[in-house]
């Protein structure tokens, strides 16, 4: 029995009835207790008391990231301040931070959601959950932590950073489930190998729960190979809850949404009409149980699709596909949309180069130039310029085939691309600065 199996295997009809009941409560609660929703529902002519089916939600207006910024800090809270027990905030790198509040019950639900994912990864009370997501306002650290506690595992709150100490703990404390960003897991693996260790033997990992950034299937394979464990994707976002909104099971074929807590829609990003299951679009989330800061139809800007059909694992909660990336991370080169994960997929298929890369965007004479910086592995026969040039040509061709746009390849020395302890910096856009 894995954690909360009875919920993750609930009959669809029963689950949908529960969703409807909770959705009605949420809509009324938002309307009655949050000024923003009173106004936005009224303006859209949406009557929260008249809702009769899950489809009726489509008449409700959206909540955007900008709405959440405008509400800074407490305007989207639905409960008295004394009931709010914890606060998280988005990084706010692109503007004002967005704030999410949690009551005791919210923290419990959050822990439950992440704990289910630990269960999906075969984890339970006998496991040692090593959390090296950053602890703090970023939801990664505490989300994984509450999950570890909820499932009853021994939980080590490492937080991010001090990689040598992470390695020491991984070697000596029997850590079996590693929770961090995929790029930090790679950094830990590479650092351990550089130190002369063999993480396959010297660590005791069985699973990694890695999220907060999109990563390719090939990157996943490389990680699994280096650390001799199985990698599970996790999805979440501060504005809704944090990691645990959706989690991957053993099938590694999509992430099960915690549908008793969240209602998901996938919409055409331009028309905002729902797309059929299986088609890509923007993920929109309505919270069903969140007390402190519920959201209605939050536009995540994440691109995914509902995976049609049932999962082989037998759980009934529907799955979303692994993220292509966030619309925010997407960039355009000469009009062509590119997701960093597409570039990563190409890079990861080249064993000649290290698992670190960075894309630099510049503009020359009005034309976008994308330059992919890669590090070459020391084993590569660097002596022959012909071979280096041939590698560059092959990579360029592979990228062109994948992206339909030309990308320059620049080979740089080892460790010149900054290693990250949290989210990796994959794109450096210098185009705006040049225009100023």
């Amino acid at each position, binding site marked *: 029995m894995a954690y909360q199996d009875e919920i993750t295997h609930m009959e669809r009809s029963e689950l949908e009835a529960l969703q409807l009941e909770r959705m009605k409560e949420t809509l009324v609660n938002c309307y009655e207790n949050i000024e923003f929703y009173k106004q936005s529902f009224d303006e859209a002519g949406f009557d929260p008391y008249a809702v009769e089916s899950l489809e009726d939600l489509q008449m409700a207006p959206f909540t955007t990231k900008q709405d959440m910024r405008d509400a800074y800090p407490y305007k989207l809270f639905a409960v008295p301040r004394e009931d709010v027990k914890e606060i998280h905030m988005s990084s706010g790198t692109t503007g004002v931070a967005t704030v999410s509040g949690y009551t005791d019950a919210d923290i419990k639900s959050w822990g439950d959601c992440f704990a289910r994912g630990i269960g999906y990864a075969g984890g339970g009370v006998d496991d040692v959950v090593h959390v090296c997501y950053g602890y703090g306002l970023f939801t990664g650290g505490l989300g994984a932590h509450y999950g570890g506690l909820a499932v009853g595992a021994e939980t080590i709150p490492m937080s991010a950073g001090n990689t040598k100490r992470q390695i020491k703990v991984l070697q000596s404390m029997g850590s079996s489930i590693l929770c961090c960003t995929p790029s930090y897991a790679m950094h830990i693996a590479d650092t351990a190998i550089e130190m002369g260790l063999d993480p396959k033997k010297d660590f005791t990992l069985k699973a990694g729960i890695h999220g907060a950034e999109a990563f390719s299937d090939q990157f996943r394979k490389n990680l699994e190979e280096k650390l001799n464990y199985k990698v599970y994707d996790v999805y979440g976002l501060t504005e809704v809850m944090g990691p645990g909104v959706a989690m991957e099971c053993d099938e590694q074929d999509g992430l099960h949404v915690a549908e008793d807590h969240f209602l998901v829609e996938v919409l055409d990003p331009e028309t905002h009409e729902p797309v059929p299951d299986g088609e890509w679009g923007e993920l929109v989330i309505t919270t069903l149980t969140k007390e402190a800061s519920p959201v209605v139809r939050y536009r995540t800007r994440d691109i995914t699709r509902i995976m049609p059909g049932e999962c082989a694992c037998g759980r009934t909660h529907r799955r979303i596909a692994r993220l292509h990336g966030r619309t925010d991370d997407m960039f355009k080169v000469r009009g062509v949309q590119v997701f960093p994960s597409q570039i990563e997929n190409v890079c990861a298929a080249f064993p000649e180069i290290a698992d670190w890369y960075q894309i630099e965007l510049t503009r020359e004479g009005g034309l976008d130039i994308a330059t992919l910086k890669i590090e070459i592995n*020391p084993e590569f026969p*660097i*002596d022959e*310029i012909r071979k*280096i040039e041939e590698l560059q040509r092959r990579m360029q061709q592979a990228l062109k085939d994948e992206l339909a746009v030309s990308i320059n390849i*620049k080979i740089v*020395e*080892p*460790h010149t691309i900054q290693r990250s302890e949290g989210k990796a910096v994959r794109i450096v856009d210098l185009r705006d600065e040049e225009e100023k």
Partner: protein
Amino acid sequence: MIDQLTVFLENTKGRLTSLCRALGDVNIQMHSLALADTTDYGIARIICDDPKGAVAAISEAGFTANLTKVVAVEVPDVPGGLADVLDALDGADVNIEYSYCFADADNGATVAFKVDQSAIAALEGAGFKVLHPEDLYKTAQ
């Protein structure tokens, strides 16, 4: 064959200096330096007196480096001297990937060739002196 130290260098200011300093700091002496350059990067090819020690030291210092086997041969210091050496290689159908000259301790001229092993027999058969590791390294490698 001789171990040539091969180093990948980005074309940035001071990078060659750092490389030479890193070798000097561990008391490694260079006999030769040949640079092959492109717009973005260069390849430094170095004959030194401790190639294995050099790879370890500069990898530690953050360079991408490895060892490449080359053949070093003394060239008679007379007009046409190098042509005679090349004749011997041509006669044996040896293909030269690249080559560069350096001066050895006796101020004689030495040429390093990136060639396959068969070059050694061809050169020695024609009466040229092919250098051995002990002629260049300060310690047995």
